[in-house]
């Protein structure tokens, strides 16, 4: 078993423990704690503890925790995917150059289509949930569907930040349901269309063909 798998499993056990007091076994927990200790000790020094002192950085971290919803998360994943996945495909020497070119085009198309639909649908769903999760004071007297504006409010007490995260969560869950269908209705055809566009324009000699056609 590789060190990475070992570390991954045990860190996963730590995460599971924190999520639901789940324990695989005492021995497993002991090993997990040992690894956690080793990893924690390897980050920063005990004599000089890492401290985030810059007020701007602290504000940015707070903002990320409070405001970053699954929609923005999807956008970040999409942007970073564009910076990494085409290069991973380009360095795949196990297929011939033509297949590689086609797979790069398909990857870029999938990322663009997936990110566009993923971000838009998440945002729209979160906005829709927000419209029906209004606090009594937020409901305007002349608002449409006035009686339904509070229907998604939880019955338990929440802070403002918790309520905002609740809306994000509910919106994301709704988006997941919606995307089961849009995967076929929007993503697949858009991916196919973009792949053909990219594959056509990246074809060796494509520029010459276009120039020849223009001169004719």
């Amino acid at each position, binding site marked *: 078993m590789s060190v990475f798998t070992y*570390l*991954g*499993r045990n*860190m*996963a056990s*730590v*995460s599971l423990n*924190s999520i639901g007091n789940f324990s695989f076994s005492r021995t497993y927990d002991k090993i997990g*704690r040992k690894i*956690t*200790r080793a990893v924690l000790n390897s*980050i*920063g020094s*005990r*004599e*000089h*503890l890492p*401290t*985030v*002192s810059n007020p701007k950085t*602290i504000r940015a*971290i*707070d*903002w*990320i*925790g*409070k405001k*970053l919803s699954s929609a923005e*998360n999807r956008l970040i994943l999409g942007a970073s*995917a564009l*910076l*990494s*996945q085409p290069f991973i*495909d380009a360095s795949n020497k*196990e*297929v*011939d150059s*033509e*297949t590689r070119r*086609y797979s790069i085009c*398909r*990857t870029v198309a*999938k990322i663009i289509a*997936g990110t566009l639909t*993923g971000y838009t649908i998440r945002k729209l769903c979160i906005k829709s949930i927000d419209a029906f999760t209004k606090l009594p004071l937020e409901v305007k007297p002349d608002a449409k569907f006035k009686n339904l504006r509070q229907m998604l409010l*939880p*019955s338990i007490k929440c802070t403002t930040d*918790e309520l905002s*995260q*609740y809306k*994000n*969560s*509910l919106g*994301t869950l709704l988006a997941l349901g919606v*995307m089961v269908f849009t*995967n*076929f209705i929007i*993503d*697949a055809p858009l*991916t196919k269309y973009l792949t053909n566009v990219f594959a056509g324009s990246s074809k060796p000699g494509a520029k010459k063909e276009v120039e020849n056609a223009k001169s004719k």
Partner: protein
Amino acid sequence: MPNLNRIFTAFKDTVATKFGPNPAKMLIYTGVLGWFLSSAAQVMAIAVNDKIPKEQKMFLIPQEIGDGAINVLSFFLVTSSIKALASKLASSGKLATPKIRQFLTDSGINIKTKNGWKVLKDFDFSKFNIKNMTNFDQIKPEYESFKNGVDVIGMTVGSILSCNIITPILRNKYAAERQQKTLASLNKIDQEKVNYPKGISIDVYKKLAAMKYSSGNLKI
């Protein structure tokens, strides 16, 4: 008959309790669910596609399930591991803001030095959790705000690593092997004959790609 209103209220309250105070947990859970639904949708697409012969469905469906399992496992293991590490860094006080450090210094956990803060030699970060301190309420808002941010950053870094680096590398390897095997079985030729440098022709690749409705990236 079950009381739908009560079930709906219980559902809303569960979402609020589970994810309200912990946004990173929500992102991981919905991420895993997204990968799972995405894979399930792809399996369904193959299963209901009349254009794919029965023999190929028998191969493509387990193949899609395998692909989905790689995606879900890689996402969950890598992302939750990095999120857990980030979370532990904040909850153990290894990484903190000056306000949290001051609180830990006042409580005798950290020691102020000329250059910053330190801990005693025998202090065990893995056992310590700021939340378990008796005077935790004094620092609760500052700590929770910082920890949620660190958690979400850890989760985002973990998902970038798993979705955009580890999974594509694993998938490319798996897909290349799979394509060669499929090609060999489709054309009833020897496996050795389709190995690199001959590779796979673009027509065959397109044909194979067309059989798969979609695959790869996190769609959901």
